[in-house]
């Protein structure tokens, strides 16, 4: 590894560590407090562990799963001291995250080889779709790619302006039909624009919607279909943006959005500060959709490729 990449990675790691600090301190702090004065892993320690996992938003089902695995190991190894618990827990979580057979991205790799590569971004209101799009476009731009952003959120007041400001910040192309335009038409024509202007990537924003609104979910399906009409095989990626502060409802969101649009990727935002990284564990366990990106701050460069091991290490260090 060259000095430069090592340096770069270190810097990234610091961002992640800082971003997860809150999660980490609560996760580790709670765990060590829970097992202080204990020498062996007994029922009480496991109960405390359950408490720690649940309050980190890991979710009931996944928590039970993790506890059961540790119980198994305790039963197998007979004697297990609390120091080992840390390692075992880390191990189990990494394994759990790895079970959905998804490889972590090396870098901000484009999904598929099509040109233009079309990415459709979906999610409930206020999770940070537009911001994530801006940050992602920035990364592609750094790779020398020609990017266009499609303003498919034609509903929320000033959403189009918000995306346009991002496109200026990033220095990429922008396509819009204004507010209240038909979002499917915007999506279709964004792809057209990308083809006509020889863009490498088209990222299409959509209006935030609660996953329980059937009409709005149908609209998403239609938007996706209209993208496919213009360019076969597109969109190459449908990315659901999830707010990391969301609790167990995140699972419902993933379920409904994948029903409507067959998600291929997840992005977890607002992992900095107060957010609980635990939901990443629950989501990875319950869904076979890879988490690709995590948002760890407000700056344009605060979007990272998700790395399971680094994430878990960050929780425990």
């Amino acid at each position, binding site marked *: 590894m060259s000095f430069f990449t090592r340096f770069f990675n270190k810097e990234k790691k610091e961002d992640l560590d800082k971003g997860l600090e809150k999660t980490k301190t609560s996760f580790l702090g709670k765990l060590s407090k829970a097992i202080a004065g204990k020498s062996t892993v007994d029922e009480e320690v496991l109960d405390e562990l359950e408490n720690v996992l649940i309050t980190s938003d890991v979710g009931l089902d996944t928590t039970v799963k993790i506890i059961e695995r540790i119980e198994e190991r305790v039963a197998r190894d007979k004697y297990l001291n609390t120091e080992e618990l840390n390692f075992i827990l880390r191990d189990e979580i990494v394994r759990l995250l790895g079970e959905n057979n998804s490889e972590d991205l090396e870098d901000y790799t484009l999904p598929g080889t099509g040109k233009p590569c079309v990415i459709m971004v979906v999610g409930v209101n206020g999770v940070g779709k537009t911001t994530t799009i801006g940050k992602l476009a920035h990364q592609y731009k750094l790779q020398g790619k020609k990017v266009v952003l499609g303003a498919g959120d034609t509903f929320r007041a000033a959403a189009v302006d918000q995306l*346009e400001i991002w496109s200026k910040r990033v220095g990429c192309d922008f396509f819009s039909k204004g507010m209240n335009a038909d979002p499917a038409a915007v999506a279709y024509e964004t792809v057209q624009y990308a083809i006509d202007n020889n863009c490498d990537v088209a990222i299409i924003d959509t209006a935030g919607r609660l996953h329980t609104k059937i009409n709005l979910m149908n609209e998403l399906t239609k938007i996706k279909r209209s993208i496919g009409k213009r360019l076969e095989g597109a969109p190459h990626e449908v990315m659901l943006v999830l707010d990391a502060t969301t609790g*167990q409802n995140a699972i419902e969101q993933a379920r409904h959005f994948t029903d409507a649009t067959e998600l291929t990727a997840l992005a977890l935002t607002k992992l900095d500060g107060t957010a609980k990284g635990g939901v990443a564990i629950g989501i990875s366990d319950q869904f076979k959709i890879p988490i690709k990106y995590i948002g760890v701050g407000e700056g344009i460069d605060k979007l990272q490729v998700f790395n399971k091991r680094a994430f878990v290490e960050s929780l425990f260090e």
Partner: protein
Amino acid sequence: MFESLSDRLDVALKTLKGESKLTELNVAQSVKEIRRALVAADVNYKIAKDFTDKIKDKALGKENLLKAVKPGELMVKIVMDELIDLMGGQAAGINLKGNPTVILIAGLQGSGKTTFSGKLAHFLKTKRSKKPLLVACDVYRPAAINQLSVLAGQVGVPVYKEEENKNPVEISLKAIAHAKTLNCDVVIVDTAGRLSVDEEMMKEIANIKDAILPDETLFVVDSMTGQDAVNTAQAFNERINYDGVVLTKLDGDTRGGAALSVKYTVGKPIKFVSTGEKMDALDVFYPDRMAQRILGMGDIVSFVERAQEQFDEEEAKRLEKKIKKNQLDFNDFLGQLKQIRKMGDMKSLLGMIPGISKMTKDINIDDNALNKVEAIIQSMTPQERENPDLINMNRKKRIALGCGQKLDDINRFMKQFEQMRQFMHQMSKSPMMGGAPAAQGKRPGFRGRR
């Protein structure tokens, strides 16, 4: 909205259905289920534990063991009382005494502050006859100022903004002075979203508060927030000591545990709930009604209130006469449909009726179903609408062509209409319906469920 929580509680309480009295054992069992239900609903783990411990104590209290009520029912009552208690007993009003009244809005990113600000302005304007001024103090997020301006335009209230100024303290102070020249009596200050661990930003919101001394500070929380809701609510409370909480995005299927946690932790009342993207989708929060909803017992009071808002007394009297004479026609029916629409979407309305929410949870109630019915009626001639009996086979065929539906659909609709007309006619003869609209007339039928 709270379906999943009520479902799970239902399971928990069902364990008691066959029991003849509350015992240590069966209470412990159902209490454990209740705790899991609450945790799965994003209620903070510790709070869920405290809550269920309290329930356990109450359930095993002496007086309860002796009472001859069914244990299941008793448990429902205990859980319900505790839920109401936890969510803050009485509905809390909003303080509008200042001149002008200054309201400060704060919260995390994406919790829905700006949308709520617009809704609150609309609410105060239409329901409290106030003249609000909206103030754009989110100077960071791209296009946030513009967003508030657009919303202000939609609800027809003025907005104060300074595109170039990056100092929210200054902006808000100037806005208050400006409000006086505009004769506005309420100033709503929308602020940027911020994380509770962002020291600089938290300082900023505290500075704004110190400068403008608001009469009311509201903390906006996304109802889908997880376990962290407790920490965030606490951190904001320490810095700005807010007066009340606003729950947003309650129209999703969130189990809403955050609501319980926040209330429990900081002890501040929940004042508003926001239930949709339209500017009128804002409700005052009523703890008892919400508790009933959580337990799947419906919220008939809200339902009737919403019905009353749309209710036109003269029209109702006219209808009543027609019903009594069995002369209800399609024009009346169309009018009723329009009224129902104004009240909101079908599923959330049905969810308020006791017993119905459970039946409808897996059914997608398609608001388009009403569209079809409307299309049928609109394909009729004015004479046909006034006189349903006029419609024969030939006319039906024409109507079917007109609205693009099958003849079967028309037949089915005609039959349903006839049944409804008969039913309402009969209801009108019974003493129970004392001139009330149809919706209330149906109430006794739903009552006997629990």
